[in-house]
């Protein structure tokens, strides 16, 4: 996932990570990067502003069945929502 959308998402995730990892990829576990539920609320806000989308709870997003556990989950959700937005 070296595309721009992923890069932007990783940058937002990193800005809220308490334990900043060396690098972030789809496999990065959010909790291990020091992103707690409160930080995730801010991240979702930043993503909504960045991509002009509304992010519902993960289980309401097509193809998502879990909470955001990894950076890849977030990328998948945002891309799905961007596709829906068209």
């Amino acid at each position, binding site marked *: 996932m070296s595309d721009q959308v992923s890069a932007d998402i990783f940058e937002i995730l990193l800005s809220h990570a308490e334990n900043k990892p060396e690098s972030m990829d789809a496999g990065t576990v959010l909790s291990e990067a020091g992103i707690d539920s409160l930080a995730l609320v*801010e991240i979702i806000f930043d993503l909504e502003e960045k991509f002009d989308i509304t992010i519902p709870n993960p289980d309401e997003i097509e193809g998502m069945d879990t909470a955001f556990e990894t950076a890849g989950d977030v990328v998948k959700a945002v891309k799905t929502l961007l596709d829906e937005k068209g």
Partner: protein
Amino acid sequence: MNRVVITGLGVVSALGRNVAEFRDGLLAGRCAIGPITQFDTSDHQVRIGAEVPDYVPEEHFDKNQLAQIDRFAQFALLATREAVSDAGLSFEGELAERTAVVHGTGIGGQSTQDENYHKLYAEGGKRVHPFTIPKLMPNAGCSQITMEFGIKGPAFTTATACSSSGHAIGLAMMLLRQGMADVAVTGGAEACLTHGTMRGWEALRVASKDTCSPFSNKRGGMVVGEGAATLILETLEHAQARGAKIYAELLGFGMSADAGNIVQPSMDGAVRAIRNCLKDAGLATSDVQYINAHGTGTPQNDPTETAAIRTVFAELADGLAVSSTKSMHGHVLGGAAAVEAVATVLALNAQIAPPTANFTEPDPKCDLDYVPNTPRPMAIKNAISNSFAFGGLNTVLAFGRAP
């Protein structure tokens, strides 16, 4: 009933960003009112306020804190950091649970409301920042204090407009008297120099366009200020046991409701609050030398307050020094009673009555000694501080020299 003393002071105000600066300004009679810089006032009729000067939030809080803490709660924390450090306290072990936080604010996170709702209403935005609610809630100041200092005893917020922190300090004193806590962190904060709020003051037509000149003829009204003040209260026993420095004794507290008009003050309500305070403090009218007046500088307050003081103190009223320090630090609204409590304690300690700044010529309806323009060295054994709020909810606090 425990006696209650003041062992720590902290303040953030236009007149000074800490107690030392504030004291210097207060006892020099310096007016800290100036142009509002926090938003574009070019199409406002009222363009002045009493802003905390050169305030850079990033110097005091990290990025994560700033996302969660409104300007009013930032001021609450800064004033409390100074007061706690001044008192030399740390809240560990049992003391954490034996310490109360009682904090006043009139509105709470007003800049958070203004900024976020502006995004919705004016910019066509679809969402607000996720911490909008925890930032704007009026109890945020109180909660942030408990969190930063690990204080775990009774904690709550009082919101009674311009008496908010008067009620906070009075109720904190009552907790200590009653033995429900040994230490109380109390005071108040306000930061509502925002586009929306200032439109509200403008519409009410009580805000001055030039400066604040309480009790003077042709005064233009009140000037909105911002800031915070925190006082550390302790039972006398607790303070003496740890050898704490004592600034003053908090002698008494009086409250009343006008039960009249939502904005028009009543002399009767003010009289009852002052009398209730003197009775609670065990003071005779002849025991008081200095009054820190509510003194907003409006046509409504100043003659009413003057008449109330005359009614309570009768022939002794002419011998009182009565000043409005709002002429220097503006009207800090929910934080006003706390800022003025600090001013009164500093006056007691310095044995100097701070002046009413910007005094020009007397108003025939205001005929007390308002300590015009020049600070006055004098013997002050006991002092009271008045706060008469919109909504007719009044508080008066009485202070005496350290035991």
